[in-house]
């Protein structure tokens, strides 16, 4: 007993020190960013924040990012949900195949992935110019709506969506749900939409939020393919308007935080870790 109290008193100052150091390290850059964005020599100004909306490219790039995010979320869920539910119901041979396929993107860093993508895109003018495939390759690179980014983001989101859905499906007895719905006369789509999906609400939200955060913050692929969604725009203006780029960073941080905290609250569990960009 004496030893127990001894070890407790010995640990506590260390613990306070660790927590204080962590608080300083993690909070100071955030506070300093806010100070930097409102500091104009001798007085405080919120000009960097109030001018954001009027700055050229802000609305365009943000809208582009949001459009890409929505399309990516829809596409990745359309691909993954039926597949994952089907794997729970049977087809156990394919289960490990899908698990491997969905974790492969973790082995290929985004920069290597985009190197491959740009090579494939170059095949268009080089080899395929007389085939209908060429039109497809041109179409997905449309400046106003680069669908090629959606394709890339879906691949990059696969590991996180797989984890989220897998965790969600583990908690639900899909087979019983579907069989109950089927024996009540529901068709397959009805069973999926009205019996299975409502039980997966948390997992679906989880997957959507993670994908949203991924797309909104994505820089590598879009920058190297020459498009200007939100993150690329922040870097592009940073040379001329340093204060505003920090202000936008602070805002985008807050938005991402609110999203992820909402996710933590809704999901009632910690967000799965993901490899940082």
């Amino acid at each position, binding site marked *: 007993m004496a030893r127990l109290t001894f070890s407790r008193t010995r640990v506590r100052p260390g613990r306070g020190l660790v927590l204080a150091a962590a608080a300083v390290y993690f909070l100071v850059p955030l506070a300093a960013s806010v100070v930097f964005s409102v500091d104009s020599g001798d007085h405080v100004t919120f000009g960097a924040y109030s001018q954001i909306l009027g700055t050229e490219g802000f609305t365009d790039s943000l809208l582009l990012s949001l459009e890409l995010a929505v399309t990516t979320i829809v596409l990745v869920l359309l691909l993954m949900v039926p597949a994952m539910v089907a794997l729970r119901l049977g087809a156990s041979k394919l289960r490990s195949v899908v698990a491997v396929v969905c974790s492969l993107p973790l082995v290929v860093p985004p920069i290597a*992935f985009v190197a491959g993508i740009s090579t494939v895109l170059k095949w268009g003018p080089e080899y395929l110019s007389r085939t209908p495939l060429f039109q497809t390759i041109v179409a997905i690179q449309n400046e106003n709506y680069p669908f090629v980014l959606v394709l890339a983001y879906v691949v990059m989101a696969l590991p996180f969506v797989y984890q989220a859905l897998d965790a969600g499906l583990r908690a639900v007895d899909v087979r019983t749900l579907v069989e109950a719905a089927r024996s009540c006369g529901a068709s397959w789509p009805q069973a999926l939409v009205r019996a299975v999906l409502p039980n997966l609400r948390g997992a679906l939200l989880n997957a959507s939020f993670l994908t949203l955060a991924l797309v909104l913050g994505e820089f590598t692929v879009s920058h190297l393919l020459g498009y200007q969604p939100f993150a690329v725009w922040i870097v592009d203006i940073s040379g001329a308007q340093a204060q505003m780029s920090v202000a936008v960073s602070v805002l985008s941080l807050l938005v991402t935080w609110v999203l992820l905290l909402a996710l933590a609250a809704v999901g009632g569990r910690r967000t799965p870790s993901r490899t940082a960009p």
Partner: protein
Amino acid sequence: MTTALPRVDVAPVASAKRRRRAPGWLAVVPLLAFTAITFGLPALAMLNGAFTVKDQATGATSYSGENLSSSLQGAYLTALLGSVKLSAVSAAIATLFGLLLAQAVVTSRFRFLREAVLTASGVLANFGGVPLAFAFVATLGNSGVLTGRLGLKDAGFDLYSFWGLTLVYLYFLVPLMVLTITPALEGLRAQWREAAQNNGATHGQYWRHVALPVLTPSLLGGFVLLFGSAFAAYATAAAMVGSTVPLVTLQIADALSGNVLVGQENVALALSLDMVVVAGLVMAVYLPLQRRSSRWLA
């Protein structure tokens, strides 16, 4: 009537069986087809390009290991080693501080503190890229808030250097470590500590002979995961340092966009292949370690 009954009984079962099997692979096919095209094609193009050499004069292409060998020489090798060094150093520091922070939080009596740190870690581990770079530029950059006030420049501190970048990377690596190691720390049973203490072990002996051996697979696995994260990071470094610190991701970007020399695209692909090999090794080490450490969490 009597002949209709068995048919009614049998038909749904048979059709349910048939239908259950059909969507099994039919629903998976679109996913596999999609990844085969959007992921498989670029991966194959990268592999193909990494081994293809184009003769500048004749335009003829041939297969050789020339790109790979030049990707392992000179400035490219420096960049690759620079990336490995930066990732290893920052992952090692993050492993240590992540462990300390997670231990401080797990043993805390305040439930609120625990939940707050874990939620914040989930957020911060996802907070990489451009905003992170600008937050640190605003704080410690050339005209940063703290740089002038604390006279850091005169003290010889430079954010746009190896150690500056390490400091920035820790911002998402430490929270990632906290998330990774917390389940393992929670798996350390109070009984083990009590048993060690009943046998007369000191605090240090308990950690050296009981806790650390149990934690080792998790710690190594976490380190490898952090290494992979730092190794693949591009956005933070690109937005912050430009090319003052040689990193393989920055080299690939330069070679891809033809910033340095024309016709280096295939060397960029070879460098990408190098990265995939390193990332593959990371996964090959991480997965068995994770499986091993999960044994203690049951």
